[in-house]
């Protein structure tokens, strides 16, 4: 369809209108499969080492439910706002797309600030990456997730800036779509982090 006059009329589902766009999405799913394995191995390490606190503070002593609940709520909401952004993309409404993506980025920033505060708090309690096997596994897993959030914030921000200049075309649409997939994936990973790391840490005791 309108590959050559992308600026005239945007086709339906512009993210899949070109072969390049389709391939981008396909390749991104392959990347997400790899990310699944990567986070999976970090989870496996964490689950295996989570009781090895080396005399330092244990998960049960450290974790605080309100902070985790807030982080979870913020990230879940940001996943919802990126869904709204994709819906705006399908309506070909650039202004709405940019607005929802901006909200997503702001929520991501809030999440990140909370995480930085939390890590800082733990370090003051003597729970560092070097203090125990539990500490190493914890900061590697949760920090890696936080790193993904930070990368996502930078990525989506640059996409918004680019779209201010280039508008919504068959070139920019796949970028937004793929970024939304990435953001959902980060939230899916967080579902397992709050469950396995935080909630199961609060229960305490050996599992498995």
């Amino acid at each position: 369809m309108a590959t050559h006059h992308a600026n005239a009329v945007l086709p339906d589902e512009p993210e899949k209108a070109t072969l390049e766009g389709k391939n981008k999405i396909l390749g991104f799913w392959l990347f997400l499969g790899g990310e699944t394995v990567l986070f999976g191995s970090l989870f496996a390490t964490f689950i295996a080492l989570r009781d090895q606190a080396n005399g330092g503070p244990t998960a049960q002593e450290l974790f605080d439910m309100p902070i985790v609940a807030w982080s979870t709520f913020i990230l879940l909401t940001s996943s919802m706002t990126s869904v709204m952004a994709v819906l705006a993309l399908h309506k070909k409404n650039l202004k709405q797309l940019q607005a929802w993506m901006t909200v997503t980025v702001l929520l991501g920033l809030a999440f990140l600030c909370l995480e930085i505060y939390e890590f800082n708090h733990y370090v003051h309690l003597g729970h560092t990456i070097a203090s125990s096997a539990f500490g190493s596994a914890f900061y590697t897993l949760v920090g890696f997730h936080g790193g993904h959030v930070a990368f996502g914030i930078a990525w989506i921000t640059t996409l918004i800036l680019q779209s201010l200049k280039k508008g919504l075309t068959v070139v920019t649409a796949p970028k937004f779509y793929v970024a939304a997939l990435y953001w959902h994936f980060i939230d899916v990973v967080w579902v397992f982090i709050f469950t396995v790391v935080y909630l199961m840490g609060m229960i305490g005791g050996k599992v498995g």
Partner: protein
Amino acid sequence: MGAGTHNEEVRKPKTEHGGVKRHLVAFIGSLVLTALAFIAVGFEAVPQGFVAPFIVALAFVQALFQLFVWMHMDQKGHEFARISIFAGLFFILAAIIVFVYWVWV
């Protein structure tokens, strides 16, 4: 910024993937599942030894919810996505079993 001009001639898409409603249902579903997990732990609402399996099951349900609804994995043309994610999950389960029951016993 001059970019909005060609977006004014908005055409109606053929399909809207169930629209906002489906996604809102997934959002509320996720909120409820999350709340259940927090309540199960915070208020000790579930028998002791059963809490961990219960919240892990909730996490899996929520993850599938989000993968299939928000990330459109339920739609046609997402066979490859399913293969990627489920292959990834398979390796994760293998890794967890190996790490927990074999490497660090």
